[in-house]
């Protein structure tokens, strides 16, 4: 009985706080994406020779995010049937966008306006094991360049 109550409490805490935090996070992501729109990203290695470029210092951005209890529960149910795990999709989307924004912010500090050779790395910290923290690390890096077109 107590287990059931605990589960329901955790689920509702996860649902309300998780939804609130996610909305807040998306709002801040959208706002910062607008602010940093001027920095262009490339995953090519070679800087086009027609650009007047200088610099090339490495910039990094990374974040570790955790899933909330409710979403994890829903994903657990979903796993019985297979298909899209929407709750995890939004977690990874948030993590990647946040990491890119942090990298862009670093580039802006050094006055760069382009980042080349961007690489993403994603590491699962829990690897889906039971009773561990469902969280994911996203790491992104590239070389910041100041260039005029």
């Amino acid at each position, binding site marked *: 009985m107590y287990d059931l109550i605990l589960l329901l409490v955790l689920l509702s805490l996860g649902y309300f706080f998780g939804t609130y935090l996610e909305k807040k996070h998306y709002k801040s992501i959208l706002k910062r994406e607008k602010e940093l729109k001027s920095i262009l990203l490339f995953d090519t290695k070679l800087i086009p020779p027609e650009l007047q470029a200088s610099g*090339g210092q490495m910039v990094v951005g990374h974040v570790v995010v955790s899933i909330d209890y409710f979403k994890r529960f829903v994903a657990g149910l979903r796993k019985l049937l297979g298909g899209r795990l929407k709750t995890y999709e939004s977690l990874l989307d948030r993590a990647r966008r946040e990491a890119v924004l942090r990298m862009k912010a670093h580039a802006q500090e050094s006055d760069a306006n382009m980042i080349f050779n961007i690489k993403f790395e994603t590491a699962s910290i829990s690897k889906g094991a039971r009773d561990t923290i469902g969280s994911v690390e996203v790491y992104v890096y590239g070389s910041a360049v100041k260039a005029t077109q």
Partner: protein
Amino acid sequence: MLLSNLEILPNKRVVKHLGLVQGSTVRAKHAGKDILASFKNVFGGELKAYTELMQEARDEALQRMVAQAESTGANAVLNIRFATSSVAQGAAELFAYGTAVVLEER
């Protein structure tokens, strides 16, 4: 020391190649922070303690790589890559490698 993950830098010329340099570190997570993080796991959101931990570890790996590059007399490391592997439950190895070179303004 200029660190970059490009192979060719604008306005710079490689005058000497010094070969591969690398740095790595193995880190375990802090038990106390782990408990705090497990609370966070109910609500979701960023695990700041882990973010910091991973950043510290990557900085350490990079520093070791830079130290190696400095000892060979390089002034830049090009084409840097990162790799992560989990060694044991709750521990991770962070690895950084690149090519040490001497650069000159063109």
